[in-house]
């Protein structure tokens, strides 16, 4: 009899078994080699980014796992963050002279587990120097056509999907108009609307009403998110109300998020600081800003576009799985 230490978590006796079937694991291996062939044929270099770094992300709605490390016996412990994406490390590589790189590796987000979410997941991320947003969208489309065996992909602007599905212009609507739209859609919010800003309301409408209305027969790519949701994308040079950011959706799954990358170190620093302000306003802890990234941007990031794609979610779509655990060796419940 093995003695098991007291643990408040209920351990199910069958949870030593993998959550995916052996069949799905073979499909995963096939997908990984298919992805590597795709990039090899395009002369994109595979790199391995570290999972631990001295900074995480400031994004108010992404929570990093963290751990403590002493660099020497004498030094005090320093917090290291498990990366929510290899983005910062990859941008440092780009600034150091890499032109076309991809990474397939683990990423971590301290957030709820659900049918499309596991706190530890596999992310494919790649960067292309000299690519604008549309060139990268075309490459993402090629990759989806190859891996999902599909022919068509739709593309709309963020403004178009709101006008089409909600009859609202997301770039000009007032907070009151957005609250009215949310109520009209029958969304009954538990804690009232007071603390929600326009982006929160737009995101609520997007995830509750717009995303579910996308056709299921082909992936939908949404481009030109509002500048206030730019994240690390550059602002559009022709319309400064929007950012050169795109997202891919398919069958209710958010599959990929891409940017024409912001390369201005000062603007990037300002966005990190504004994230931390929003964190304070929400009573979330502020986060250290990644100085290595800012210095790298200052040294010069090539004009490039980059995208992150959830490999487990892509695999779910390929095999028709309804829960992410069905494509993971061991999901968080079995961790």
């Amino acid at each position, binding site marked *: 009899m093995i003695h098991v230490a007291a643990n408040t978590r209920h351990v199910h006796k069958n949870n030593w078994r993998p959550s995916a079937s052996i069949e799905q694991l073979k499909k995963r291996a096939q997908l990984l080699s298919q992805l590597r062939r795709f990039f090899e044929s395009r002369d994109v270099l595979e790199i391995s980014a570290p999972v631990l770094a001295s900074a995480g992300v400031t*994004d108010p*709605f*992404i929570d990093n796992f963290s751990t403590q490390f002493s660099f020497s016996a004498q030094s005090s412990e320093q917090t290291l963050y498990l990366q929510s994406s290899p983005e910062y490390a990859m941008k440092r590589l780009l600034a150091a002279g890499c032109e076309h790189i991809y990474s397939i590796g683990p990423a971590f987000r301290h*957030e*709820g*587990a*659900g*049918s499309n*979410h596991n706190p530890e997941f596999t992310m494919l991320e790649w960067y292309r120097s000299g690519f604008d947003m549309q060139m990268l969208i075309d490459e993402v489309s090629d990759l989806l056509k190859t891996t999902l065996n599909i022919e068509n992909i739709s593309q709309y602007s963020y403004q178009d999907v709101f006008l089409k599905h909600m009859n609202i212009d997301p770039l000009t609507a007032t907070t009151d108009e957005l609250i009215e739209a949310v109520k009209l859609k*029958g*969304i*009954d*919010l*538990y*804690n009232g609307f007071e603390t*929600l800003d326009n*982006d*929160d309301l737009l*995101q*609520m409408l*997007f*995830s*509750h009403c717009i995303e579910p209305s996308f056709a299921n027969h082909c992936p939908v790519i949404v481009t030109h998110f509002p500048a206030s*949701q730019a*994240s690390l994308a550059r602002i559009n040079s022709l319309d400064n109300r929007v950012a050169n950011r795109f*997202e891919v959706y398919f069958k209710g799954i*958010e599959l990929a*998020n891409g940017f024409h990358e912001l390369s201005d170190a000062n603007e990037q620093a300002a966005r990190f600081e504004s994230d931390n302000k929003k964190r304070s306003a929400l009573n979330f802890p502020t986060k250290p800003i990644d100085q290595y990234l800012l210095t790298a941007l200052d040294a010069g990031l090539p004009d490039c576009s980059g995208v*992150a794609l959830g490999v487990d979610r892509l695999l779910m779509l390929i095999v028709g799985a309804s829960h992410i655990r069905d494509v993971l060796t061991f999901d968080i419940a079995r961790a």
Partner: protein
Amino acid sequence: MANFSTNEFKAGLKIMLDGEPCNILENEYVKPGKGQAFNRVKIRKLISGKVLEKTFRSGDSVEGADVMDTELAYLYTDGEFYHFMNNETFEQIAADEKAVGESIKWLAENDVCTLTLWNGSPIVVTPPNFVELEITETDPGLKGDTAGTGGKPATLSTGAVVRVPLFVQTGEVIKVDTRSGEYASRAQK
């Protein structure tokens, strides 16, 4: 009662909403890659029985409801209250007409019902899935009819009216499915 954060939400969790205990039926976690996460929750209000959908911001916390189910045998009614007893401890609990609701037409002495207690008081009485009740009145049916075609109404000892096959007669005890209110079979002797 403890508070529950949205990351503890799951089907079966009992929470307080608008001053009423509720049962979570479904919990869907909606988290875009960028932006606020939500929990879309389907909830049944336990007193009114109403089912509604509510959106929570992830991180919201809600007061838990002190709700438990207990198995008690029905004893009798005094006209105002319905009395139940725990067959092991012999402890008795009285439920009012509101808690008994529609279940009233299936309550037969000694049947073990599920009583949902909120802060110790019954709010819902659920009869067993199957009850056996005597037919007190039904038209004599035609001989030779087998179950199926049409049937006829029969009044039971509790006052409930169910459709029964033509061959079943007054004085017989039948088994009824309380969830659908339909005749299941003649009772096993």
